Every structure is written in C-alpha cells, then in structure tokens.
C-alpha cells in the first residue's frame, strides 16, 4: 500500500514530523553562557538566599568555636557539632538518597568521575542512588551484608559509599553530631580524612535556595569522610577505621 492515496506509514510520519509544533527554542546559548560566567556558588560567601540561609549562618557562627576546636573544614563539607535534631529522623532508605539508577546512568549524570570500591569480596553495589541537588549530583552506593561488613539490623545495609562533586556549586554540607562523638584524623592514600565515630550523626546539606535537605539515611555507624580531586567521599558502615580506609583506598 504505497501508492499516492495510501502512503506508507513511514512517509506519513515524516510528513507529519515536518508539521510538528514544538515550543519555541529558548536562547539556551545565552542562558548557558551566563551561567558559565557566574563564579562558583558558595553559600557562605554572601549569595543572598534568604532567611533559611541567614539562620544557618547564625547557627554556624554559634557552633564555629566547637568546630574549630576539631580543626575540620572540607571543601563543600562543613562539620558542625551540636545537638541532634529533634525529633530524630526515622531510618529510611529511599527518597532522601535520590532515585535508583545504574552506574552508567549515574556516571553520565554527575559532573565528576564516579569511582567504585574494588575491594576483594565486595563485588558490585546492590543499590545505586542518584540525587540532585546538590548541583552536579550525589551518588550513593549501597551494599548489603558482605564478609567483614555486617548489615545494620535496622537498614539491612552493610556499607554505604557516597560521592558528590564539591567543585561545581558546593553547597553548605553540614554534619550534625551530638555530643560524645569522636573525630579522628586519618589518611586515605595520603589525603587528609576524618573518622567520625561514636554517637549518632546526621548528614544534611543545604541547597542553593538555603533549604536544608536531609540525606535521610542514618546508620548510626561510623563514617570516614574525605575530599579528593574535588569530590567529597563518605564511607559509612565499616566496622573499623582500618576497614573504612581499605574500602576508600580501593576506589577506582
């Protein structure tokens, strides 16, 4: 049926395509150029983002003495010591971590080179989540129980590795830690790192609008944090600092 009165479906589709009404294309080249000319956004350097940020900055000032006592300061990451938020967030794995994805899609989406632990026996992550914000994306790799990495009974997760770009638009990341926590300086492949152990700690970040975003995941377990090549990393759930460093140094 390919005569003039009954053209093939493909020809009809091509003809229809030539008459499709798409919305007018916006001036993306100008919009993108404007964005690229803007300096990297650092919330604590004066970008007006409203009352929420002002409150956050005030809280930072109040807590800075405590934080300074520990000498912490990662690019894109702020460790703030204070009382745990009340009520405590429930232990949930899901929305706060973003959307389930694949390694390939996560790598295509984030603006940094995603790395995966290659520690023997760990294998591939069981779940991969991609979250935005932060700008540039945050990827969380979840491992269920592995040899040497027992699962947390509440979450059934043995190990968590999180990475987010801190070089594109580093928002203010905050870690709220209640009293009794211990922070130990460490090294990951020669790079300065911190082992946050004991007590309950919560991971938050503040997006470009100054909103506090709760990563939702709370293992109440110990965490190794470091920044390397513009990417902030967290390894959570390892039974010891040595185990966490082994995972960290196996990233490829």
């Amino acid at each position, binding site marked *: 049926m390919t005569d003039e009165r009954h053209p093939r*479906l493909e020809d009809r589709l091509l*003809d*229809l*395509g030539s*008459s*499709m009404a798409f*919305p007018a294309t916006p001036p993306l080249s100008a919009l*993108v150029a404007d964005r*690229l000319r803007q300096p990297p956004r650092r919330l604590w350097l004066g970008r007006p983002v409203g009352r929420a940020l002002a409150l956050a900055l005030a809280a930072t000032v109040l807590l800075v003495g405590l934080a300074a006592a520990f000498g912490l300061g990662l690019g894109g990451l702020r460790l703030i010591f204070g009382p745990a938020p009340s009520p405590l967030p429930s232990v949930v794995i899901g929305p706060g971590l973003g959307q389930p994805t694949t390694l390939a899609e996560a790598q295509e989406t984030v603006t940094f080179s995603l790395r995966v632990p290659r520690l023997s026996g760990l294998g591939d992550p069981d779940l991969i989540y991609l979250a*935005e914000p932060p700008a540039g994306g945050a990827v969380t790799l979840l491992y269920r129980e592995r040899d040497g990495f027992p699962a947390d009974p509440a979450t059934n997760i043995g190990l968590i590795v999180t990475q987010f770009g801190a070089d594109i638009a580093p928002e203010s990341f905050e870690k709220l830690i209640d009293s009794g926590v211990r922070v130990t300086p460490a090294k990951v492949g020669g790079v300065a790192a911190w082992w946050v152990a004991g007590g309950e700690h919560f991971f938050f970040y503040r997006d470009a609008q100054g909103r506090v975003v709760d990563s939702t995941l709370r293992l109440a377990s110990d965490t190794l944090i470091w920044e390397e090549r513009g990417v902030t990393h967290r390894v959570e759930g390892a039974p010891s600092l040595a185990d966490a460093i082994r995972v960290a140094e196996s990233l490829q």
Partner: protein
Amino acid sequence: MAEVEGRPLLEREWIESARRGDASAFEELVHRYQEIAFRTAYLIVGDADEARDAAQDGFLRAHAALGRFREGAEFRPWLLRIVANAARNRRRSAARRADLALRAFRDAASGDAAPSPEALLLAEERRGELLAAINGLRVEDRLVIALRWFLELNEEEMAAVLNCPRGTVKSRLSRASARLREAIGEVADD
C-alpha cells in the same frame, strides 16, 4: 561564528577549544545544538519550561564533563545522552510522567504542485488521524516514534537518549510502529 582562514571552525575544533576553557567555543556548540537538545528534553518532560531547564542543566553538565569526552566520538549523541538524563531526573523530581500531547501546524502542505483545496483538506484530516493515534499510544511508544520521525534522530542518538543498546532501539521502534499501525487500522506491507 568563529572562523579560521575564512572557514567555519570544525566541531572538533570547537570541542578542543572548549576543553581548553574557551567559553565562546562552547557557546558555539550550545548554539548549534540548542534546538535538538531542547526538543529532546521537551519530548521527555512534556513541558516547555522544564525542558528549557533540563536542556540548560544538560549543557552545563556537558561543559563540566568535556574532559571525559572521548576524542573522535560523535558529540551529538554524547550531548543528547546527558540532556536526556537531565530531563529524566527532572521528570522524576517532579514525580510525574510526561503527558505530552503532540500538536501539528495546519499549514504543512507538501509536494511540488499546488494541491487542490480538497487534497489539502484530506491531507490535513490524515495528519490529524495519525497524530491522534500517536497521542493515544503509551508514553514510551510515543517517545520512540517522536525521536525517530519528528526529531529524525539516528539509531546511535536514539540509543543515547533512551539509554539502551542500539538493538533495543530497533525492537522498540518496531513494536511502537506495529502498535501505531494497529491503532490506525493499517496492515504492514512487507
């Protein structure tokens, strides 16, 4: 447009310049691909404002990722993959599906000779029927048909946008076409 000895810069030269930090070279790339990027995003998110933001996100991510662009690879599918991912993320964040209803202009007569008013009317009716059938398909089928026939993407580009192997593109397009034929009551001519 940037030129060398009177000729337009080749795309790979733009890419190289952009990788070295030449913002105007990247702007040229954006200008060249902004329409296809925006329309691709629009087909995924189904909203012009969201599509603009997704395409912008995609270009910014592509800029940040230029260092990982493989030399010698095709830029357009690489870019469209990134834009499509940005669009899918926006769609997920909005927690809704793209309920895109495609529309056609009324004055899209084709052919060399001036058609009669009756022929124009008939052609218009046929386009309307076909478009209605496409809009009645599942979102996934509608997307694959629109990418192929309305944006005229090639297989590699479709695979990038759909985030699947090229073989899967063929099968998805084949299935979508079969369902469209069924919807309009047409029998495939092999």
